[in-house]
C-alpha cells in the first residue's frame, strides 16, 4: 500500500480547470519531485493534499484512508506537514515557540492545568522544551532558540519552517520551493539536509522546486505538471530526456 495515492484528482475554479487527472503515488521514505513551469498547478496540488482546497473530483488516500473533506489541522495531525512558498513563520514568537506550536498536538494538557499551572502543565511543557531543543540542535539552531523568528536571517527562516513542519512528526513532508532565494552553496547544503531528514525522521518528502540541480540531485522520482495535467513521471534521467518536458520548459 502506498503512503499517499491520488486518483484522477482535479479542481475547477469557476470555469477554469486548474488541475485535471492528477495521479500521484508516494511510497514510504521516498523523495519525490514535483516540477513544472510557472502556473502549472504545483502549489494547488499541495493545497489539495493539505485540505486548503477541496477537490472537485478524484480521490486522495493517505495510508489507505481518504482524506478528502478533512480540515488542514486534521490532515496535519494524521501525518502530512508542509512548508510554504513564501515563508510563513509566527514572526513575533520565539524560535522555540514556533517549534512548540507544531509539537503541542502530541503534548496535551487541559485549559485548567494551563491556567493554574498544575503538574500536567509542568510535565508536558518540560518534555516539549526538551524535544524542541533537541530538534533545534539537529539543525544547528539551538543558539537562536530564544530569538524572535523575524530576526533570523533568510536561510535560517527557511530551515526553521522545515523544522517546524517536522515537529508535527509527519509521515509525509511537503516542501514548497525550499531552495527559493538560496545561493548554490546553500542549495547544496539543503540537499544534504533533505537526505538527512529522510534518514533521521523516516519521512517521505514531496518537493516543489525550480532549481533543477536540487531536483535532479535529490529526487528519486519526478512528476511533471503542465497546464494542470501530468505530462510525465519517472526517474531524473528519464525526465531529463523526455521530449514533452523539454517542450513544456522551452516552449514550442
Amino acid at each position, binding site marked *: 500500500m502506498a503512503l499517499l495515492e491520488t486518483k484522477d484528482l482535479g479542481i475547477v475554479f469557476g470555469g477554469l480547470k486548474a488541475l485535471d487527472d492528477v495521479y500521484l503515488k508516494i511510497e514510504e521514505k521516498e523523495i519525490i519531485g514535483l516540477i513544472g513551469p510557472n502556473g502549472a498547478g504545483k502549489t494547488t496540488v499541495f493545497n489539495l493534499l493539505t485540505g486548503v482546497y477541496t477537490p472537485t473530483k478524484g480521490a486522495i488516500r493517505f495510508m489507505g484512508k481518504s482524506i478528502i473533506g478533512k480540515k488542514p489541522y486534521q490532515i496535519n495531525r494524521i501525518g502530512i506537514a508542509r512548508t*510554504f512558498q513564501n515563508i*510563513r513563520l509566527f*514572526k*513575533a514568537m520565539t524560535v522555540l*515557540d514556533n517549534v512548540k*506550536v507544531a509539537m503541542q498536538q502530541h503534548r496535551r494538557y487541559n485549559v485548567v492545568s494551563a*491556567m493554574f499551572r498544575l503538574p500536567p502543565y509542568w510535565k508536558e511543557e518540560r518534555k516539549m522544551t526538551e524535544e524542541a531543543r533537541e530538534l533545534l540542535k539537529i539543525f544547528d539552531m539551538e543558539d537562536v532558540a530564544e530569538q524572535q523568528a523575524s530576526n533570523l536571517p533568510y536561510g535560517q527562516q527557511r530551515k526553521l519552517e522545515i523544522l*517546524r*513542519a517536522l515537529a*508535527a512528526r509527519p509521515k509525509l513532508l511537503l516542501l514548497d520551493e525550499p531552495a527559493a532565494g538560496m545561493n548554490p552553496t546553500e542549495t547544496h547544503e539543503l540537499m544534504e539536509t533533505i537526505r538527512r531528514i529522510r534518514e533521521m525522521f523516516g519521512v517521505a518528502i514531496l518537493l516543489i522546486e525550480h532549481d533543477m540541480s536540487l531536483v535532479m540531485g535529490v529526487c528519486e522520482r519526478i512528476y511533471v505538471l503542465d497546464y494542470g495535467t501530468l505530462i510525465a513521471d519517472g526517474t531524473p534521467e528519464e525526465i531529463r530526456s523526455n521530449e514533452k518536458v523539454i517542450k513544456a520548459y522551452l516552449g514550442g
Partner: protein
Amino acid sequence: MGKLKKKTGAYYLVNTVLTAILFTVLFLLISGRTLNNYWSGVVVLICINVILAVSLNLVTGILGQLVLGHAGFMLVGAYAAANFTRAVVTNGTMSLYVALPIAMVIGGLVAAVFGVVIGIPALRLRGDYLAIITLGFGEIIRVMANASFLQPVTNGAMGLSVKTFSNRTDPGAMFVFAFVVMALVIVISYTFGRSRHGRSVIAIREDEIAAEAMGVNTTYYKLFAFVLAAFIAGVAGALYAHHIGMIDPSKFDFNRSVEILIMVVLGGMGSISGSVISATVLTILPELLRGFSDYRMLLYSIILICVMLFRPSGLLGRYEISLPKLVDKLLHRKEKAAKTGEA
C-alpha cells in the same frame, strides 16, 4: 532546568507577597475610612476596569482581533447576576456575601453563552468587519434590554436596582471581591498566554494559515479566546452592578466598549501589565480632572493623542513588566556593588 524552576518559584513568591501587601494596604485604607467613600469607590472601579481591559486584551492583544462589543457582555452578566442576588437575598436564602460569588459565576456563564452565540458567526470575519459586527451585537444587546417583553428581567430604561453591601457596616466588602477577582483574572490570562493553548491563539494572530497547517484548530481557539473574554466581562459586569447598585442600560453603550478598547490599545496590545497600568491611569485621570470639568474630556483626548503619536504600539507594546525581575535586578546590582567594593 532545576534552577529555572527554583527561580520561577521565587518569582511566584515575590508576586504573591507584593500582591498581598497591596491588598492589605488598600483594604486598611478603605475599611478604616482613611479613603473617603468617593475614592474607595474609585479603587473598586479601577479593579473592575482592570478586569475588563485584561479580558479584552485576550481577544485584541493575544488573538489580534478588534472587538467592540465588550460592554454588551458586561450588561448581560450584570443582569444575570443582579436577578440572581435579588431573588436569593430578598427571600433570605443566603446573604449577599455568599450570593455574590455565585452570581458572578452565573453572570460569567450567561455572558459566555452569548459569546458562543455571537462568536460562531462573527469570528468568520476579521479586522474591521469583526469590529463592526461585534459593535452591532453589543448595541442589539443594549437595545433589547429596553424591550418591553424583557421588562421583568431588566426593568427597561428605568434601570434595575441591585443589592449592595451596606457602606456603613462594611465599606471594604466590595473591594475584597473586586480585588480578588482582578488578581485571579490577571494570573489566569498570564498563564493562559504562556501555555499550549495561548501559544495556539498567538500563532493564529501571527499567521492563521500556517497555524492551521501546523495542527491548530483555529475555529476552536478563536472561539475559545472570544468566549473566555466574554465570560470575564460578564463577571466584571456582575461586580459593576453590585458596586453601583443600579443597572442602567445606557451606561453600557458603544462608548463603554470603546473606553475599554482604549485602555488595551494605550497599554499596548498583548501586554497584560500594560492593560493594568493604563486601566488604572485612565480610571483615575478623569476623576483628577474633575476640577476642570469643562476641559476634562479635552485634556483626556489630548493625552490619548500624544501617547498614540509618540508610542503607537501602546505604552508597553507587547512587553511585560515583571516586579520580581525588577527586584532581582536591584538585588544583583547590590551584590555586584558589594563585590566590587570588596575588590
